[in-house]
C-alpha cells in the first residue's frame, strides 16, 4: 500500500508538487501519468524518502519509508535505470545490493533469468548495456528483495514492444499475487496497457484519477455515418452538442443510446456508434495536462477525484 497525502514541494521558488493525494491498493497497478516536468519524479522521490516534502506526508506499507528497517526487503524501487556504476558488472551490481539487504546471492541468478539477462550479458560491465538492458537490470534490482510494493519511474523507457508486453505480464502477475505497483510514464498508451488505475498529474497537481472506465465516463460518444451532413443535421435537430472526431465522424456529449435515437429521428444510417474510447482518453489526457486545472469543468475534476 502506498499513500500520499497532500504532498507539496517547492524547488527554487516554484511549487513543483502541489497538494498531491492518492492511494495505491494491494493487488492493483497504478499508472502515474503526466507530461515531462509534471512532478512525477519529485513525488516519487518524496515517497521513498530521498526528498523531504515541504508539506503533507507519505506512507508505504503504513509507515514513513525511512522507518522501514530494511526497506529493500519490502519495497522495490527503480527510479533511474541509468543510475548504476558503469564500471561494475551487471551481476555484481545486483550482488552488492543483495549483500546490503541480507539476501542469499543465489537469488541474483534467478532474477537475471527472470528478466532475461543472459549469463554473458550479466558478466559485462553496465557501461556496455543498452537502455533496454539497463531497464531489465533495474527491474531485477527492484524485485531482488522479494518486495510487496514496487515503485518504478518510467520503467518502460527503452523497452521494445516485446519488452513492454513482458513487463506488463510481470507487473500483472505481481499485482495478482497481492503486490502494490506504482509506475510512472509520460506516455498514455504505455500506462493504458499496464495499469488498472491512473493518477494523472499536470503542473504539479493531480488533475484526475480513477479507473479507465471512470475517467472515460462522460467523455462522450463517437458516432459516424457515410452521410456526415445528414448526421450533423440530426444531431443539431436533437439538440446534442458535438465536435468533429479526430478520424472523421463526431464526438457527442451524450450516451450512445441518445445519439442513436437522434440518428433514427433524422433517418441517418450509422456506420459506427460507440463510447468515445481511445481518442477520448487521449483527448482527455491532452486537455488535462495542458490546460490549467482551473480551466477544467469543476464538476469533472470533482467527479474524478
Amino acid at each position: 500500500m502506498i499513500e500520499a497525502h497532500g504532498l507539496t514541494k517547492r524547488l527554487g521558488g516554484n511549487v513543483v508538487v502541489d497538494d498531491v493525494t492518492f492511494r495505491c491498493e494491494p493487488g492493483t497497478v497504478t499508472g502515474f501519468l503526466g507530461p515531462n516536468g509534471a512532478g512525477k519524479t519529485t513525488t516519487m522521490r518524496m515517497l521513498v524518502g530521498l526528498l523531504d516534502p515541504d508539506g503533507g506526508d507519505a506512507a508505504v506499507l503504513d509507515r514513513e519509508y525511512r522507518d522501514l528497517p530494511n526497506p529493500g526487503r519490502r519495497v522495490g524501487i527503480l527510479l533511474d535505470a541509468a543510475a548504476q556504476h558503469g564500471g561494475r558488472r551487471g551481476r555484481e551490481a545486483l550482488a552488492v545490493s543483495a549483500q546490503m539487504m541480507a539476501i542469499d546471492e543465489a537469488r541474483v541468478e534467478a532474477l537475471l533469468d527472470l528478466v532475461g539477462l543472459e549469463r554473458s550479458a550479466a558478466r559485462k560491465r553496465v557501461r556496455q548495456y543498452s537502455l533496454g538492458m539497463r531497464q531489465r537490470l533495474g527491474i531485477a534490482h527492484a524485485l531482488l528483495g522479494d518486495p510487496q510494493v514496487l515503485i518504478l519511474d518510467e520503467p518502460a523507457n527503452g523497452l521494445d514492444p516485446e519488452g513492454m508486453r513482458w513487463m506488463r505480464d510481470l507487473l500483472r502477475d505481481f499485482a495478482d499475487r497481492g503486490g502494490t505497483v506504482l509506475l510512472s510514464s509520460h506516455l498514455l498508451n504505455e500506462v493504458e496497457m499496464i495499469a488498472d488505475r491512473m493518477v494523472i498529474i499536470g503542473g504539479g497537481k493531480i488533475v484526475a484519477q480513477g479507473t479507465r472506465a471512470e475517467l472515460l465516463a462522460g467523455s462522450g460518444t463517437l458516432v459516424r455515418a457515410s452521410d456526415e451532413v445528414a448526421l450533423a443535421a440530426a444531431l443539431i435537430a436533437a439538440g446534442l452538442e458535438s465536435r468533429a472526431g479526430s478520424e472523421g465522424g463526431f464526438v457527442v456529449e451524450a450516451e450512445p443510446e441518445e445519439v442513436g435515437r437522434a440518428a433514427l429521428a433524422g433517418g441517418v444510417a450509422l456506420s459506427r456508434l460507440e463510447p468515445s474510447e481511445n481518442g477520448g482518453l487521449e483527448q482527455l489526457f491532452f486537455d488535462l495536462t495542458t490546460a490549467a486545472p482551473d480551466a477544467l469543468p469543476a464538476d469533472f475534476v470533482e467527479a474524478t477525484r
Partner: protein
Amino acid sequence: MSIAVLPAPVSARDADHRPGLGRLTLVELRKMTDTRAGLWLLSITAFLTVAVVAIAGLTLDAQDRTLREFLAIATVPLSLLGPVVGILLVTSEWSQRTSLITFTLVPHRSRVLVAKLFAGISLAVIGIQLCLATALLATAAFGGGGDETWSLSAALIGQDALSVVVAMIAGVGFGAVLLASAPAIVLFFVLPTAWAALGQINALEGAAKWLDQTRAMEHMLERSLSGAEWARVGTSVALWVMLPVVIGFWRVKRDDVR
C-alpha cells in the same frame, strides 16, 4: 514467466532487521574493489609499493637499508593513493549516481557514511600490514647487516599505521564535503600544500607549526613523538580530518540525491 518460480528469497528473518554496520562496512569494502577503477587503483598501489621498496633495496647505502627505512618507504604509495580510494568511495556514488540505490536501501544516510569510514580504516589497516610484510621481506633480502637493521619499535609501527588511517579518513571526509571526484582529489593534495606555503610567511610561522599537517606529522614515520608533537598532530588532524568529516556528514545528509 512468473515470479512464483523464483526461489524463496531467503530467510524472512532479516526482512525486518536493519542491516548492521558490520554488514554495511563489508559492502563498502566490496564496492572499493568490484569496479574497474577501484581494482586498478589498488593494483597500482600494490605495484608501486613493491617497486619503490625494491629500488630502495638496490640503491640505498648499507646503513640505510633498515627495516625502519623500508617501512617508511613502503608506506608512501599507500598514504598517497589510499586517500584517493577513500575519496572515490564517496564521490563515485554521486558521479555514477548509485547514491540513488544506496540511500533507498539505507535511508539513514549517516550510517552509510560511517560504514564508508570504517571500510576506509579497514583498508588502511590491511594496507599497513602488507607494507610491513613487504618491508620485512625487503630487509631479509637487502638488509644492510648493521645493528640497526632489524630495529623497529612498536610505537613507530603504530605511528605509521595512524598516519595512513588519518589520511584515509581525511580522504573520505574530503569526498563527502565536495561530492565530486576531481575537485576532491585536487583539493585534497593542493590545500595542505598551499597552507604549507603560507606557513613560510614569518607572521604565520606559529600557526603553521600547529595547523600544517605535513609539518606536524613530519616525524611520525621517523621516531616516537614527544607530548608537544602529539598535541600538534592533534590540532592539525582536527583541522584537516575532523572538520571535513563533520562538514561531510552534514552535506551528505542534506544533499538532494538525483
